[in-house]
Every structure is written in structure tokens, then in C-alpha cells.
């Protein structure tokens, strides 16, 4: 039996790329969160590339909120440094939408400050792929190696394919999170609308001419006490309910 590492041609022998891609594609999205999806992508990236000592994924959602996963604390540190210094392979991959490979952080001149810190953390090789979903760059995934020239053309191809699948998975997980957020906001909006409708009804029963006038009165009150219309409406409904509870029943 020969070594599992093939010369350059072996697509199937060294690593089960198809299996990994299926794993990413086959997730039951309704049960997955952005966080579990990030962790999965990170672990697949670690095993998919040879001699990788750490991997990380960062995505940003519609609100500009960043989520990330890292296989270990120093990967997290190396990632955080990119944002602090505003330079680094992943930021470039993210912004340019193109793969970035560093063969040796001690000689690469593109990210001088980040390279210096990365080398101190023990990172010598980097491969970072952008996560592009529906034509939009939503983040980047990267693998780090402790020896120079860890990554070659084969790793680039593997990372590109993984990133393509991972981007779809992460974009879907984000959409799901967005959908949940919208549902929650809508429910809250309806509850507020109900409270205002109740308060309007009470005012109408007491002789206010129209719903518009009732809203005007609630808004004027809200302005006087520096509250929201919803708060005033709720206070009004509460007060009436409390009063009715106090008065003796028929």
C-alpha cells in the first residue's frame, strides 16, 4: 500500500471531498443554526486540507453582524487581529472575492503588520477563500499551517469547492435566522397595534369623535410624558381594566 497522499492528480484518493460536500449540502436546515453551520464548515475545512493546524470561518449578515467559528483559540486570535489591524488574507479574500494564499508569513509582503503577528502566533501558511452566495461576498473561510508552503494548487481547488457549498449553507442559515427575526418583529408589531386599537375603542366609547382623534390624543399624551404611543395605550387599557376589576360586578 502506498502513502495516501497522491502526486497531484488524485481527486478521490487523498480526501473524500464528495463526502464532505454532501455533508454540507445535506444538512436539515430547519434544525441548524448559523452557529452549528459555522462549526461544521470549520471542521470540514480542517480535515479537507493536508497539514492544517487550525481553521476558521467568518460571515457577516444583513445587519452587518459578524459571526465566526474557529477550531482553536489562537485561530480566533489571528482572525481578530485582522479586524483590529484592518488587514489580512481573509479581509482581502472577502473584499476581492478571490482566493488568497500565503506561502510564508515571514517573507510575504502583502500584509506586513498582520504577517508579523501571525508568525509570532506560529502561523506560516494561510489559505483563505471568499464565501460568495448569490453573487455577494458574505465572508471568508481559512486554514492555517505551521510550516511554510503548506498549501498548493490542490488545496486551492478543494477550498474553492468547499467555500462554494459552505456559502450556500451559511446564506441559507442566515436567511432562516432573518425570517425568524422578521416573524418576531411582526408579532410584536401586531401586539402593539392591538393595544392601540383597544385604547382607541375605549376613547371612542367615551365620546371621542373618530379613531383619528383618538390616535391624536394618544400621540399628544405620549409626547407630553415622553413615552411611546404603545406605552400610553397599554397604560390606558390597564387603568380601565383595573378600575372595572375594583367596581362591584352586577
Amino acid at each position, binding site marked *: 500500500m502506498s502513502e495516501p497522499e497522491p502526486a497531484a492528480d488524485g481527486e478521490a484518493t487523498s480526501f473524500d471531498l464528495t463526502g464532505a460536500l454532501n455533508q454540507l449540502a445535506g444538512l436539515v436546515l430547519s434544525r441548524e443554526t448559523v452557529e452549528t453551520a459555522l462549526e461544521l464548515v470549520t471542521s470540514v475545512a480542517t480535515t479537507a486540507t493536508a497539514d492544517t493546524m487550525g481553521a476558521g470561518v467568518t460571515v457577516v449578515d444583513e445587519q452587518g453582524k459578524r459571526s465566526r467559528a474557529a477550531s482553536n483559540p489562537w485561530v480566533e486570535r489571528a482572525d481578530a487581529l485582522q479586524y483590529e489591524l484592518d488587514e489580512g488574507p481573509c479581509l482581502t479574500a472577502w473584499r476581492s472575492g478571490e482566493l488568497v494564499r500565503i506561502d510564508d508569513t515571514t517573507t510575504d509582503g502583502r500584509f506586513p503588520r498582520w504577517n508579523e503577528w501571525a508568525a509570532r502566533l506560529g502561523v506560516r501558511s494561510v489559505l483563505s477563500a471568499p464565501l460568495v452566495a448569490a453573487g455577494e461576498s458574505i465572508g471568508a473561510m481559512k486554514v492555517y499551517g505551521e510550516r511554510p508552503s503548506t498549501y498548493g494548487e490542490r488545496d486551492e481547488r478543494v477550498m474553492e469547492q468547499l467555500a462554494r457549498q459552505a456559502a450556500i449553507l451559511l446564506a441559507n442559515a442566515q436567511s432562516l435566522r432573518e425570517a425568524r427575526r422578521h416573524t418576531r418583529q411582526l408579532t410584536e408589531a401586531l401586539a402593539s*397595534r392591538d393595544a392601540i386599537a383597544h385604547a382607541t375603542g375605549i376613547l371612542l366609547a367615551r365620546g371621542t369623535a*373618530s379613531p383619528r382623534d383618538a390616535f*391624536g390624543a394618544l400621540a399628544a399624551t405620549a409626547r407630553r410624558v415622553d413615552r411611546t404611543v*404603545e406605552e*400610553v395605550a397599554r397604560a*390606558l387599557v390597564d387603568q380601565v381594566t383595573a378600575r372595572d376589576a375594583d367596581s362591584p360586578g352586577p
Partner: protein
Amino acid sequence: MTRHDRHHQIQAARLRADLSVQDLWLAYVALGGSGDAFDVDGYLQGVVSLDTFEQDVLAQAVNEGLADVYRAARVPLSTSGIGDGAVPGNLRAIVEHLLEQPPRIADARDEGATDDPP
């Protein structure tokens, strides 16, 4: 203040309150507004007209958004309780007053909201 440039004011306030059109529409619906998101977007762009009441609801929604921003930026005083705005008793009293003497007919409401320069 003509009705024509009110949408500009609301649009400017929306940006200041850092609300997306979607967020503003939702806040407006929460207050009882009945236009859809396209009506609101179109109104803000000056290509759709909203009736005065819907405009008022939208103005209230954006004003509450602005109030949130200012409230979050307020600096608390060392003497706690002072400067925190209305006290709860205040709200009770004023609501009580509102219940005792609800406005009956459309009175000429003060144009308080339009006093401030944009």
C-alpha cells in the same frame, strides 16, 4: 410648512434614527398605519401620496425612533432618578385625565412636531 416637503423631513428623520424603510414601515404598522411597505417607500421618495392621518402615524413612528436614539445617547446624572424623563405616576395621572376628559371633536391640534428645524 407645506405638505409637499413633509416626506423629506420624515426621510431625513428616518436616516437620523438609523431605521431601514422596512423597520420604519413595521413601526408604522405597529402604531396602526394601514399602508403597505411600498406605499411608505413611495411616500418617502415623493412618488406616492399618503393621506394626512397616515402621514401623522408615520411621523409618530419616526419620532419614536428618534427618541430611542436620543434616549440611548443620554448621559445619566450622578444623582439617580433625575433627568430620567417621566416618572410612572405622571403617566397614570395623565392617562386618568385622558379617560375623564377624552377629546370629543377634532380640535386644531398644535403643530408641535413641525416646530423643530429638520
